[in-house]
Structure formats: structure tokens, C-alpha cells
């Protein structure tokens, strides 16, 4: 017929450009399509009708539709990192060089081993998995599940990273019109003329929806509306953009294809629009429904509208002899389109008794037979239609005639696309006259003002013809047909597909009803009806009509399943957009970050910060580096970058009173110039943060929090200040990043700092738990004499911009002292050697300070603090609560982190009773032995007892309960 493919028509095709052939590949074959083709139209033009296999029975599948609802023609697209499974051939624009593969078939599309399921269909009914694979239990795990998993699933996930880029954009509009068909364009024009900002989103590359294909002067009507819209500066038109979901308060998500499958375009592949719409016009059109007759899944049986689209839009013949089967007038347009293209239409089979509308008359006038009150009894053919068997629609399927054909165009009526309307709460009404669910405009989705946030128009509102705008002639009513013929036999129902991808048939839904599934939501999950990638766009209405008939109840009583976004799948790349790799999240870096990097620091993520875990030297393991750093600190001097420590200024006449509520201990009595360790609990009594507070002046405290807790503690304070004690005169400010802080730690710490000069750091001038302000090495500084390691320790805070200078001066001045930078792990080990708790190790949101032996940090004098009342509750004062102890391994092995100590006996589930667990565990380089801390029932009263910690696959660990302070019990080292 033409060199553009054996099924390419010589004339027509409003969307294709014959001057631009595009080569592409399908399962290794080299084929050729035209610019403007979809993959489906290009494959059909090449004679490739079969495009995949179904999910359960591996039956051959050709395209059913021509748009987003396509359940069958799903292909693998691209190669390597650009491979994408399950792409709908009907909506994928053809690009030169495209590489495509069929799915769900092995070894090949034409010869598929899994198709043996096809012969077993009588034994694979609804709920098959649930029924068959329950017993014996071990078989599920070892036999059934592995086999099912191997054969289940459609496309395969790509194995390489996606090299394409994606972006997101935000927009606002008074009105967003979803759908660029005639109804949407006219609604946009009305709003534009009122001066509103309007955005129109159209899923396809071309405007107009069905109007140019279905109505005589449709294209000129669309062009006129577009010309008006393009002249309005307040109107934005966006093609290739699929609105996938409507959410709270007019929040609309849409995906714009910028350079889909065209990596050479130099653009991001897709853009995700996040639009805040003042109002949404749902002009999303309608989808045609299949008819349920025996053999309706044979390749070549398509929706009548799809057949028409392939012929009129792409100049592709889906077949040469096309039988039309319908219950409405609209499908006659397909017969006319086929005849206009020079194709044969041996008959139109109409379930209605007397089709006499304008369209049937026009077809009849072309000399075409119209078989009224008729139905299809069966379609014969394997990988393509061969014969159509005709019967009376009111009978049981007695074949009256057979017709040779290679294509069947079917139409069971139309269903408005009500997804966006329904996503955010819009309700539906069943129309008996139109046999469709319609948006109920008296129960719309509502916005923040309580008013409707969406309005349906055109076919989405049930007005299929939009006659006022298209000039279409009135049509005769359709006859609802849910099973064809009406009294079809059981054997016929076994071959009537509802869900073409998941292989759910009329017989499956009837079986589910028979077995007691009355709810449409349960039936969906039991049969998998509507659970395919098209999410029921094709199958839902037919399925629930069959269910209603089986339950002998009207359709509205059965209702629909829930419409959930997205309308069509979104790629994960679009959802992630730029938030990947280095841009996944912001990184916080201290002023000394570059120095650490240059010294080869191994990084530990702490919140959004990166902190050096250790500084391994050449050939050194991390464990060896940590041990070396600890020995250097305890034997000489080390420096820790403590800049990430939270720093919150609390200031005002009521600051002391406020901190007495925030901390369990007393902060108001702290003298100026002193520091005090404090615990912060939540109102549930649980310990949530700890740290040292310093009183800077009469009305000002500086609160140190944990690194990860800074923002949380600041928010915690603000909550109580703003909402509970809002009349107290207190300000807080999170100044964490304003200061660089260096812990100078070890017996030589004072010596090192004195070399820098400028401040008197003698024990008399700066005693333990005191702080001083001055200049060190010419840098303004506050020095806090506090210790988290048990050693003589000074934490030096300087303005952030001078942190690196201080750090470098310390290392220059202390070279001969062996000054050693140390990381977070050395810090952790040293605090554990001293029995100091760590928030997040010893605490997990269920631990109160009393569990940790921290009663000394809880004021007995205060009448109140946050958490005090909770700590008086019976469970909190239970003597059986697990309490902090040290644990000493009996055999020299380090206890695994988090392991449980078992007790005598078993609980009601037959598991061993428990009496404690490990919260921190390390090898102590200082002591040369493993050390651990844990929470144990009656722990502090059981010193010397041995606990057992069973671990799968290893010999049971045993550990003795000891004092949690392993090193320098008298605490003399902190005095230097």
C-alpha cells in the first residue's frame, strides 16, 4: 500500500507528517513510522498488531484503545539507564531511533511458554491465589511464592541510574482548565474574557480532544477558539501536560513532557507542575467502554473510537474488514471513517431494536448492513480476529451468521473521566438514561472557603456531544449492555474479558458475588478487577455493572471503587526532580569542614551536618584511628570540632524562671560565669535532650543542646513560650551557626591554650564548670571549662568566621605536644568510658532521667517542670523499670549493640522473658577491654550478677553488671 508500512493508508492522517519518516526498533526488528505517530499507530502501520501479553494467562494482546486508558499495549522503552517498563504505546510519541521491547512473554512475543496458563483458566478463577496457596503453610514460602514472583509483574525495572534530568515548577492561576478539547477551550475563553488568569492543560501534543476527529468542521472550531485564547495575555496554554491529581485546597499536580524519550533535545525530560488553582474546570472528556462478548480480548478487537482515531488521525488501518458492534449511535462514526478510508465494513451489529438516528441512517445509505437487536456470540482467532459470530442480543447465543473480519470496533457507551472531580471528595450520581456516573454538582470537592473548587464541563459532565459548540446532531439513546448477549451461557462468560491486562472476566466477578463478595472494594481486591496499570479506566464500570446484576441490585447501590491519584503513572524521576545526588538535601558544614576534608576525615552524617567520625592515616583502619585518637587525647591533647553543638540564647527578665520549667534541674540559681549540666524532658516525662547551660549575664543564658537537637529544642522552647507562658518576658535565639566551637581536651589542654595567649586559664581563674570571656590568640572567645571526656577540657567558642583560624593556630602551636584532631567516635568511646549517657543511645523516647541514675540533675525543690507530673505516674515510678548499669563482657568479646538479656521463663507468646538490653558498646582503647552500658531490671541493685544475651548464630554472650563509670571513677582527671 505504501512504503510507510503495509497498513498505512495512502490518504489522510491529520496528525502525521509523511515527509518525515522515523526509524525505530521493536523486539530487534527495524521498523519505520512517521512524525506525529504514536508508538501504537507506527506498530499497527507496520502490521504489528500484537504488542504484548496479558498478566495472568499470557494471552496475546493488541491495543484496545488509542489513549491513556490503554491496558494492553505496554512496552519497554529505551535502553540502559533510560529503560522504562510499562509505557503505553498509545500515548508515547514516536521518536527517531526509539528502541522498544514487548513484555511479559518468554521466550518471545509470538511463542510464550507462560501461555500454558491460558489452558488452565478454568483452574485459575477469581481468588485463585487466596484459595490455592494457603496450605500446606511451608509451601507458600518455599514453592508457591518464588514461582509466582518469577512469573508475576509486567515490565522489568531498569538496572542503571536514570541519566535524564527532571524539574519541578510552581504556578498559580485563578482558573486551571484540565482538558484542551472543545469544552475546555471554551470554558477557558469565557474565563479569559473575564480577566482571570487561566492555565489550560492538555494531555496530548495536539489540541481539540475528539472534536477534530468526530465532527465535520471540528478542527476549524478548535482553531478559532485557540486563536482567541492565544491573543489573551492572561491565558497560558500547555500541551503534553497530564493533570494527574487534585488535592486539598486546589492543589493540582501535572506532568509536562518536555523531551520524553528524546535525550538529544537538550531539555529536562519532564517537568512536574505544582499548581495552586483558584478553581479547576474538569474538561477531561470521557472514555469509551468495551462490550463484554465472548472473545472480546482477541487482538484486533478494539474500542470503536480507537479504530476511528487510528484511521482518521494516523492514516492507519487497524484491519481491512471491520465489523462494528455497538449499543449507541456514536460507533457509527467509526463505520463512516472506515468507509471514507476505503476499508470494508461488512456489518454493524447493534444491540438496539431499531437504530434509526442520523448516524445509522448515514451508514445505511452507504449500503452497509445494520443487524439490529443483534450481538456477537463469539470472535474466533488466535493472534488476530478471523471470524465474528452473530446472534440475537436477547437470546442465549445461538449463532445465526458468521462474518469474516480482521477487526472488531466495539462500543459499550462512554464513561465521563471523573477522576479529578473525585480525587478530593467530589461525589457522583448514576444516570440510568445515559448509563454513566456523572459528577454531582451539588456535592462538589470543596476548597478552603467551603465553596466548590471544581466544575465539570463537556463530556466529563456527561454532555458527550457538546452540541452547542460542535454543531452535532442529536443522537438516539443507547441501550445499556453489560453482557452480550443478554442470556449468555456460562461458557461464553468464561471468554468475556472485563480487565484485559489482569485477565478478569465476567465469570470471575460473578463467582466472587456467588462467594459472598458484596462490596465493590472487596470484589476488586479478590478478583484484581481494576488493579491493572490502567487502574480500572477500561474495566470498572462494566465490572461493577456485572457485580450489581449478580447481586440483583441497582448499580448506584453497588457504587464505584475510590478514584485515587495519580490518573496516569508518574515517573519517580519527575517526583524526585532535582532532589537527587548532591542536591538531595542541603549539607551543613562547619567553618573547619575543609580542613577536615584535607586531612582525610571519614564523615558521619549527624542530622544535616557532616562531622568527622575519625581521621584515618594512610593504611589505618577506622578502629585503629579511633584508638590512636583516644590515646592521644588521654595522653596529651586533642581537638574536637564541636561547632555543630546547638547554641540557643535565652534572654529576658523571666529567662531563669522559664529555664527552670524547661530543665529538670534548677537553672535560675546558676551564678553568672558558671555552667551547669541539664536535662530536658517532654511533657510525657521522657528525656529528649541534654547539655550544658552557661549564665552569660543577669538575664541571659546560653543553652547548649545536642547536635541533632538544636532545631528541635529551639522549637520546643518557642512552643511553650508562645502558647503556654506567653506573658513571660523571654526571647530565644538559635545562634548555633554564629559560633565555631573547639573542644581542647587532654592533660596538655591548658598548656596548649596558654601558648596561644590572651586569657588566664588557671584553675583559680577558670575553675571546672566555669566560663570566661576574652581574647585568645587575638580572637574574641568564650571558653567553657566543661568535659565530656573526663579529661581536662576547654570548649572554646569564637565567631564562626574565625573558627578555622583558631583551629589552625591550635595545631601550629601544639605540634610538639602531638595535638591530635579527633572525631565523633573517639568522643563517643571516651564518654562511655566515663559512663556519660548519649541522647539516642541510652534514650529512645521511652526512657526517663530516673532510669539513667540522673536523679542528681532533677531538682527536688521545684514545684514544676515540663515532665514532672508525668514522672509521678505509676508506670514511671515502677521499681521494675530497667535502669542504667555498666556491662563487662566475660569472654573478651564486645557485646553486640541492642541485644537483650534474657530472664527465666517465657511470655504468653512462648518467647523468653527479658530483663534488659545493651544501649552502648565499644572496645575501650584506654582499658584494653570491651565496655558496654545497658538498661537492666533492678540493675543498680545487682552489681556482680551475670546476664545472658543470646544471639542467633553465635555463642550466647555473658556479661557482669558493673558500675557504668569504667575509667577514673573519682573524676580527678578533669582537674588536669
Amino acid at each position, binding site marked *: 500500500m505504501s512504503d510507510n508500512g503495509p497498513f498505512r493508508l495512502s490518504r489522510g492522517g491529520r496528525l502525521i507528517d509523511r515527509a518525515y519518516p522515523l526509524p525505530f526498533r521493536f523486539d530487534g526488528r527495524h521498523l519505520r513510522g512517521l512524525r506525529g505517530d504514536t508508538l501504537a499507530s507506527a506498530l499497527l502501520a507496520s502490521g504489528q498488531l500484537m504488542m504484548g501479553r496479558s498478566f495472568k494467562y499470557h494471552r496475546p494482546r493488541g491495543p484496545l484503545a488509542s489513549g491513556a486508558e490503554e491496558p494492553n499495549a505496554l512496552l519497554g522503552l529505551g535502553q540502559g539507564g533510560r529503560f522504562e517498563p510499562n509505557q503505553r504505546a498509545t500515548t508515547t510519541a514516536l521518536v527517531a531511533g526509539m528502541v522498544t521491547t514487548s513484555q511479559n512473554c518468554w521466550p518471545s512475543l509470538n511463542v510464550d511458554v507462560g501461555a500454558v496458563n491460558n489452558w488452565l483458566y478454568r483452574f485459575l478463577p477469581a481468588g485463585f491465589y487466596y484459595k490455592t496457596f494457603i496450605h500446606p503453610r511451608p509451601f507458600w514460602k518455599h514453592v508457591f511464592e518464588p514461582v509466582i514472583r518469577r512469573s508475576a509483574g509486567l515490565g522489568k525495572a531498569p538496572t542503571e541510574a536514570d541519566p535524564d534530568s527532571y524539574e519541578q515548577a510552581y504556578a498559580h492561576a485563578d482558573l486551571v482548565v484540565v482538558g484542551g478539547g472543545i469544552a475546555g477551550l471554551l470554558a477557558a475563553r469565557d474565563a479569559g474574557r473575564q480577566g482571570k488568569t487561566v492555565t489550560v492543560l492538555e494531555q496530548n501534543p495536539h489540541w481539540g480532544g475528539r472534536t477534530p476527529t468526530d465532527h465535520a468542521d471540528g478542527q476549524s472550531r478548535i482553531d478559532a477558539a485557540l486563536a482567541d485564547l492565544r491573543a489573551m495575555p492572561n491565558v497560558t496554554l500547555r500541551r503534553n501536560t497530564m493533570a494527574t491529581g487534585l488535592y*486539598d*485546597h486546589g492543589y493540582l499536580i501535572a506532568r509536562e513532557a518536555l523531551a520524553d524519550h528524546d535525550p538529544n533535545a537538550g531539555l529536562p525530560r519532564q517537568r512536574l507542575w505544582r499548581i495552586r488553582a483558584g478553581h479547576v474546570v474538569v474538561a477531561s472528556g470521557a472514555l469509551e467502554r468495551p462490550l463484554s462478548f465472548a472473545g472480546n480480548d482477541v487482538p484486533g478487537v478494539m474500542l470503536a473510537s480507537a479504530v476511528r482515531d487510528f484511521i482518521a488521525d494516523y492514516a492507519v488501518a487497524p484491519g481491512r474488514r471491520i465489523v462494528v458492534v455497538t449499543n449507541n449511535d456514536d460507533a457509527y462514526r467509526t463505520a463512516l471513517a472506515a468507509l471514507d478510508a476505503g476499508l470494508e465494513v461488512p456489518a454493524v451489529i447493534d444491540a438496539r431494536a431499531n437504530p434509526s438516528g442520523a448516524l445509522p441512517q448515514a451508514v445505511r445509505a452507504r449500503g452497509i448492513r445494520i443487524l439490529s437487536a443483534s450481538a456477537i456470540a463469539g470472535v474466533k482467532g488466535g493472534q488476530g480476529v478471523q471470524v465474528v459470530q452473530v446472534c440475537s442480543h436477547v437470546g442465549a447465543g445461538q449463532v445465526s451468521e458468521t462474518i469474516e473480519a480482521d477487526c472488531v470496533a466495539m462500543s459499550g457507551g462512554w464513561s465521563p473521566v471523573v477522576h479529578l472531580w473525585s480525587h478530593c471528595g467530589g461525589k457522583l450520581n448514576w444516570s440510568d438514561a445515559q448509563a454513566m456516573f456523572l459528577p454531582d454538582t451539588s456535592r462538589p470537592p*470543596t476548597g*478552603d472557603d467551603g465553596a466548590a473548587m471544581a466544575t465539570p464541563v463537556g463530556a466529563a459532565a456527561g454532555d458527550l456531544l457538546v452540541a452547542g459548540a460542535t454543531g452535532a446532531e442529536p443522537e438516539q439513546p443507547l441501550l445499556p449492555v453489560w453482557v452480550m448477549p443478554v442470556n449468555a451461557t456460562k461458557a461464553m462468560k468464561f471468554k468475556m474479558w472485563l480487565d484485559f491486562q489482569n485477565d478478569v472476566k465476567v465469570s470471575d466477578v460473578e463467582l466472587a458475588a456467588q462467594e459472598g463478595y458484596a462490596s465493590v472494594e472487596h470484589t476488586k481486591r479478590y478478583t484484581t478487577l481494576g488493579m491493572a496499570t490502567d487502574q480500572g479506566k477500561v474495566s470498572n464500570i462494566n465490572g461493577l455493572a456485572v457485580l450489581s446484576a449478580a447481586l440483583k441490585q441497582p448499580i448506584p447501590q453497588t457504587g464505584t471503587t475510590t478514584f485515587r491519584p495519580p490518573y496516569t503513572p508518574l515517573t519517580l524521576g519527575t517526583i524526585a526532580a532535582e532532589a537527587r545526588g548532591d542536591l538531595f538535601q542541603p549539607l551543613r558544614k562547619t567553618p573547619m569542614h575543609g580542613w577536615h576534608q584535607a586531612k582525610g576525615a571519614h564523615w558521619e552524617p549527624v542530622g544535616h551536618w557532616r562531622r568527622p567520625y575519625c581521621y584515618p592515616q594512610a593504611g589505618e583502619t577506622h578502629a585503629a584511628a579511633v584508638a590512636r585518637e583516644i590515646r592521644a587525647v588521654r595522653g596529651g591533647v586533642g581537638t574536637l570540632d564541636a561547632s555543630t553543638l546547638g547554641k540557643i540564647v535565652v534572654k529576658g527578665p523571666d529567662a531563669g524562671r522559664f529555664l527552670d520549667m524547661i530543665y529538670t534541674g534548677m537553672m535560675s540559681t546558676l551564678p553568672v560565669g558558671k555552667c551547669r549540666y541539664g536535662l530536658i524532658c517532654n511533657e*510525657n516525662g521522657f528525656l529528649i535532650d541534654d547539655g550544658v547551660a552557661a549564665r552569660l549575664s543577669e538575664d541571659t543564658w546560653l543553652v547548649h543542646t545536642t547536635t541533632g537537637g538544636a532545631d528541635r529544642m529551639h*522549637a520546643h522552647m*518557642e*512552643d511553650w513560650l508562645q502558647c503556654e507562658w506567653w506573658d513571660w518576658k523571654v526571647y530565644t535565639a538559635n545562634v548555633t551557626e554564629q559560633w565555631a566551637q573547639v573542644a581542647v581536651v587532654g592533660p596538655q589542654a591548658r598548656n596548649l591554650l596558654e601558648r596561644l595567649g590572651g586569657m588566664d586559664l588557671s584553675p583559680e581563674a577558670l575553675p571546672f564548670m566555669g566560663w570566661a570571656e576574652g581574647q585568645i590568640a587575638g580572637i574574641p572567645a568564650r571558653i567553657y571549662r566543661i568535659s565530656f571526656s573526663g579529661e581536662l577540657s576547654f570548649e572554646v567558642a569564637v565567631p564562626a568566621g574565625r573558627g578555622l583560624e583558631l583551629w589552625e593556630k591550635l595545631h601550629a602551636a601544639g605540634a610538639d605536644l602531638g595535638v591530635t584532631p579527633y572525631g565523633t567516635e573517639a568522643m563517643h568511646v571516651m564518654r562511655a568510658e566515663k559512663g556519660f549517657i548519649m541522647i539516642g543511645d541510652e534514650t529512645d523516647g521511652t526512657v526517663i532521667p530516673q532510669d539513667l541514675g540522673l536523679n542528681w540533675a532533677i531538682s527536688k525543690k521545684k514545684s514544676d517542670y515540663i515532665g514532672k507530673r508525668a514522672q509521678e505516674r505509676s508506670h514511671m515510678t515502677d521499681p521494675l523499670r530497667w535502669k542504667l548499669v555498666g556491662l563487662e563482657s566475660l569472654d573478651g568479646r564486645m557485646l553486640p549493640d541492642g541485644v537483650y538479656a534474657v530472664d527465666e521463663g517465657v511470655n504468653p507468646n512462648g518467647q523468653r522473658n527479658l530483663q534488659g538490653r545493651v544501649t552502648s558498646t565499644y572496645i575501650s582503647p584506654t582499658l584494653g577491654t570491651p565496655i558496654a552500658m545497658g538498661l537492666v531490671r533492678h540493675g543498680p541493685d545487682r552489681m556482680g550478677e551475670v546476664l545472658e544475651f543470646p544471639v542467633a548464630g553465635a555463642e550466647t554472650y555473658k556479661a557482669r553488671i558493673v558500675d557504668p563509670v569504667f575509667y577514673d571513677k573519682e573524676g580527678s582527671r578533669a582537674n588536669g
Partner: protein
Amino acid sequence: MLTLTCPCCGIRAEETELAPGGEAHLKRFGPGASDEDFESYLFARKNPKGVHFERWRHAYGCGKWFLAARCTATLEVFGTYKAQNPHPTPEIVAAIRAKRPDWTPDWTETSPAESLTE
């Protein structure tokens, strides 16, 4: 995603800028309170289907806590007001009643002087 107008800075904020804080107008019970009162304060929440008063913080904006009157069923927002109000303000009550005539306040009205509308 909700939009709420922060009564402190006037910005119409999107939910990504906001942090939720649960039910509003809880009365704090501290030491000396009965177990029942304390349990009710700490755990018991109304969780209504319909009119609800909630705490929100304009966390990625001005940082202020505020309160919102909202319908949990339809997500309609009746208004937002300052966190320091012991009860919804008369303006909020009027706005709710205009939309939900059947709704009545479940607190004892305090003197107008306690209201902190500006």
C-alpha cells in the same frame, strides 16, 4: 495540601511551610493534678469529624504558633487566630456558625476581655 493564613505575619502559607501541633486549647495539668486530669490533658483528644481547633506553627515563615478553626471532613477553614487565645474568638465562632448553624461551642464563654484579637 492545606493553605492557612498566618495571623501573625499575614502570609497565606502552604502546608509545606507549616508544622502541625495537634488539638488547640488544651488546659495544662501539672504536679498536683489528679491522674484523671493529667491523663486527659496528655492523651485524650476530641478527634471530631467536623469543626476542629488546631495548633499550627508557621515553621518556615515567621516562626509563630497560631490556631486554626477547620472542618476535618471538608477541610474548610473558618479562620485562623492567635495562639494566646484561651478559646476561639467571637469572630471565629461567628464564622463557624455562618457555615455550620447546627454547631455550638463546647466551652464556657469567658468575658470578652480575655479575647486577644487585635
